[in-house]
């Protein structure tokens, strides 16, 4: 079942075209990995899916993105509700300078949840879903700033899923983490897939192979190949993809 339909998407930074006529359908409860060299447009493409690029002056979008059959670029579309529906996790973990509890409760409150019991329940379930609960349940009211990088990133994921989005976008979520924290994030992606649709940008080819169902290879703004991950990493259809993933590019 299609969750996201991206049709002939073009994206411009002033006169520079960063994404060129890209069309991709993403099925519900799947993980799509976006790979490609730096500057190929994969992060720009990712940010189009929750309209994060809107805040950058001089940018322009052509084409359309539909989530659950509804165009997110239509006039008067409520961008706030889009961001609620499409959560995002960034390369650098960015917890609020607040307590662990508040990091998650804050998003719930600004989304209109005021019932203390409900907030507590959601804080607990989010921390459990990200395998943080056992590590932090006795210090929920301590600052999150003292966390390790891996814990901070998992807290950010907990914060994202607390408001129950449908889609999670991840922009190199484990690139600054040690192997153990990376493994935890990757395990988490496998778990989260049952509930959410995930799109992840990664420079780590093995990570793309480990966590995703489908992989899209971008180069200079073009979508070169979209295929099942197993196919991309064993027998890609295109020579250009083969050259990129075997390190024989350029």
């Amino acid at each position, binding site marked *: 079942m299609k969750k996201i339909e991206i049709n002939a998407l073009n994206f411009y930074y002033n006169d520079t075209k960063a994404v060129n006529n890209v069309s991709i359908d993403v099925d519900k409860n799947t993980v799509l990995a976006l790979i490609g060299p730096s500057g190929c447009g994969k992060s720009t493409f990712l940010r189009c899916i929750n309209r994060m690029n809107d805040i950058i002056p001089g940018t322009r979008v052509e084409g359309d993105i539909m989530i659950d059959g509804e165009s997110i670029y239509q006039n008067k579309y409520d961008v706030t509700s889009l961001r609620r529906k499409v959560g995002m996790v960034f390369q650098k973990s960015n917890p609020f300078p607040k307590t662990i509890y508040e990091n998650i409760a804050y998003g719930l409150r600004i989304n209109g949840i005021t019932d203390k019991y409900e907030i507590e329940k959601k804080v607990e379930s989010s921390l459990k879903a990200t395998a943080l609960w056992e590590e932090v349940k006795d210090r929920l009211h301590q600052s999150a700033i003292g966390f390790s990088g891996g814990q901070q990133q998992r807290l950010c994921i907990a914060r994202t899923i607390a408001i129950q989005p449908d889609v999670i976008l991840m922009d190199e979520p484990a690139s600054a983490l040690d192997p153990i924290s990376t493994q935890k994030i990757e395990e988490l992606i496998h778990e989260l897939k049952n509930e959410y649709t995930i799109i992840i940008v990664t420079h780590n080819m093995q990570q793309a192979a480990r966590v995703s169902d489908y992989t899209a290879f971008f180069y200079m703004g073009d979508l070169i190949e979209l295929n099942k991950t197993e196919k991309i990493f064993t*027998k890609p259809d295109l020579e250009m993809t083969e050259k990129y993933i075997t390190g024989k590019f350029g």
Partner: protein
Amino acid sequence: MITHLEGEIEGIKKKIFTMTDGAIEAISNAIESLKTMDVKLAAKVIQNDTRIDKLEIQIDDDCVRTLVTQQPAASDLRLILSFIKINNDLERIADIASNIAKETIRLEGRPQIHPESDIPGMATTCINMIKTAFEAMTTKDVSMAAEIISIDREVDELNIQVYRELFTLMADNPQVMPQALGLIMVAKSLERIGDHAKNIAERVIYYIEGVDIRHEKS
């Protein structure tokens, strides 16, 4: 500039080719020892098998190391996976050649029978199959590799023919039974070498095209 992975693959390829030369030499010498009843040559085949066994372990270690440290993908991954399987086929070929050489030693002193049999021809065909498989790998020629699979059927038919001829000989003259049974075993061994050569050709096709054609009914 050659990458580290390319260097590793080249190193393994060289060892695979050394192993191939060793396996081919083993078949050739084993059959020559049988034709000429040269037990010294037979003993040499058996002795050299240890060298091939050691090389098999080295190649496996190299492949595992490359998989772990270089994490190859696509054609590089398929090539290393093919190396692992081809390595095993070559080791088995050398083992079978060694068994043929043991048959020479077992038959020493007995009068030779059926010198006009197709056994030497079977051996030559098997050797050519192995050589062609590696040429197909080097030139990435799928049709050349596919041809080997049809040649294997010819080797299978020759084995049946040799069996019939030797069975008739035994029926006519039971005294030649030890030699005839020995030669039946040799023909069967060559038929198995043909199967391994076919396996190698299938791994070559997998490497080139990413398609696994094993167990496909023709």
